């Protein structure tokens, strides 16, 4: 246990980012992610890093665009309404292929909503969010340890594929403390960035841009992006199956909700109900094949998506299951978090189990 420290999820992201070599942070205050910038404001100067509190989320994401364009590891963080403001910049970043990390510690919405934990930004995160034809890699941690681990993974994927990566968290994961073992800095991979705008010394211009005025050029660039996305889908999908081997009913849940579902699984098994859980760790790419495979299994009688929303990820579950087995939904929204017992009661109700 010597290496494990008790940390808040928000702080774990901040520390792991610095371990990953991130020395540039641009952001704007918003609850419930404030511990993250506060931590970096304190520690970045000690490591010769840049912490800048911008005038708005809009400015912050554009600073990320400029900074990431120079090839340094850079990040921003915010919570739902702030992430909405960043969407224009994220679209530019995706098109211009600027590697960076965007953290969303999701809270209850729409509108100003509240500051309680929620998963209501799933569509925004995995279906685009900003304008245009693009994807974000979306990682979904479900513990403070994964907040740290996925931060390091996010920077690696961002550099490897020259693409923005989003860490989709929630208020609980941000605020909760758990023991965490920080990733080993010596395992951090460095990438060459010959495209970066660092000053044209002994070469011609490097350009970071998202404009392709001729439609055929734009189409070609989008195809290039989608070839890259296909590679990511092929190589980078991660997920966890929990008690799925003999499961008759499979819950699909991510983030904090997956934790609640795990406990519900244990409770169900005590009652003789064969309940399992599939937890996507990457929300994009989504575990389509694993779900399709489970749908084809003789044991499985049905799926239930459990979310802190009125049902967003369920659409991807349905697309993956493709009508082979029924897909039900249970969710609480607006910042309400169900207990494991409430989840189990609803699973039983939806599938008429005793």
């Amino acid at each position, binding site marked *: 246990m010597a290496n494990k420290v008790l940390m808040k999820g928000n702080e774990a992201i901040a520390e792991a980012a610095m371990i990953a070599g991130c020395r540039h942070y641009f952001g704007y205050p918003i609850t419930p992610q404030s511990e993250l910038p506060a931590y970096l404001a304190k520690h970045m100067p000690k490591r010769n890093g840049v912490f800048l509190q911008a005038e708005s989320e809009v400015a912050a994401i554009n600073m990320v665009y400029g900074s990431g364009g120079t090839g340094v590891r850079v990040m921003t963080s915010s919570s739902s309404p702030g992430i909405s403001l960043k969407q224009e910049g994220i679209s530019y970043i995706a098109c211009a292929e600027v590697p960076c990390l965007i953290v969303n510690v999701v809270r209850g919405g729409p509108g100003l909503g509240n500051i309680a934990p929620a998963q209501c930004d799933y569509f925004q995160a995995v279906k685009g969010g900003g304008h245009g034809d693009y994807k974000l890699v979306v990682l979904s941690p479900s513990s403070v340890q994964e907040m740290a681990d996925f931060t390091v993974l996010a920077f690696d994927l961002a550099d490897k594929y020259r693409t923005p990566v989003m860490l989709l968290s929630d208020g609980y994961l941000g605020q909760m403390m758990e*023991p965490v073992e920080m990733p080993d800095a010596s395992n951090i991979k460095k990438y060459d960035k010959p495209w970066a705008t660092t000053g044209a010394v002994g070469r011609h211009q490097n350009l970071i841009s998202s404009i392709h005025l001729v439609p055929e050029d734009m189409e070609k660039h989008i195809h290039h992006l989608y070839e890259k996305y296909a590679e990511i889908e092929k190589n980078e999908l991660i997920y966890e199956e929990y008690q799925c081997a003999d499961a008759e009913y499979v819950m699909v849940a991510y983030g904090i909700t997956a934790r609640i579902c795990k406990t519900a699984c244990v409770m169900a098994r005590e009652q003789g109900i064969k309940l399992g859980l599939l937890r996507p760790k990457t929300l994009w790419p989504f575990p389509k094949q694993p779900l399709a495979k489970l749908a084809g299994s003789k044991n499985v009688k049905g799926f239930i998506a459990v979310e802190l929303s009125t049902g967003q990820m369920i659409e991807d579950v349905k697309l993956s299951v493709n009508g082979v087995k029924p897909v039900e939904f249970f969710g609480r929204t607006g910042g309400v978090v169900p*207990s494991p017992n409430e989840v189990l009661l609803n699973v039983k109700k939806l599938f008429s189990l005793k």
Partner: protein
Amino acid sequence: MNKNECKFPLNLVIAGFGGQGVLLAGKLIAEAGLHEGREVSWIPSYGPEMRGGTANCTVIISDSEIGSPVVENPDVLVIMNRPSMDKFLPSLKKDGVCIYNKSLIEGFKPRSDVKMVAVPASDLAVQMGSTKLLNMVLVGSFMANSKAFSEASLAYALKKSISAKHQDLIPLNEKAIDEGAKFIA
């Protein structure tokens, strides 16, 4: 004391007024549990209700991976004020333990299917020189009652959780913990 007497996972809710040291009490307990090699989680109520309203946190100490950090029916309650008693007592598991600050909580309807442990925490704290010590008194009572971790682990947690400039306050806090523990014996 024999720590094997404690049954894990132990689900604990600590609640009180903002400013009574609810979150720090929870953090100490989580740190002490971690020091003994257990899985722990600490989750606060957060946001505007922290300022002047009620604050609470949930701490889980477990021998295995912790699933839900959200607990509907805790095994143990540590309650520092009356509104928290009204809010959380009904949620306590049957045969659970409710350790409460007798100095500030009166006239409520206790439950007969749980163990009610009254500790005059605020009074003891004032006797030791500061009402702020009441959270430490209750942490001491919790430790002695639950046997979830050793005194040494708690001492370690205290050292770790108190900032460098307040390290001189450690002996006083340790004394408050002792007082709270003595009350259980």
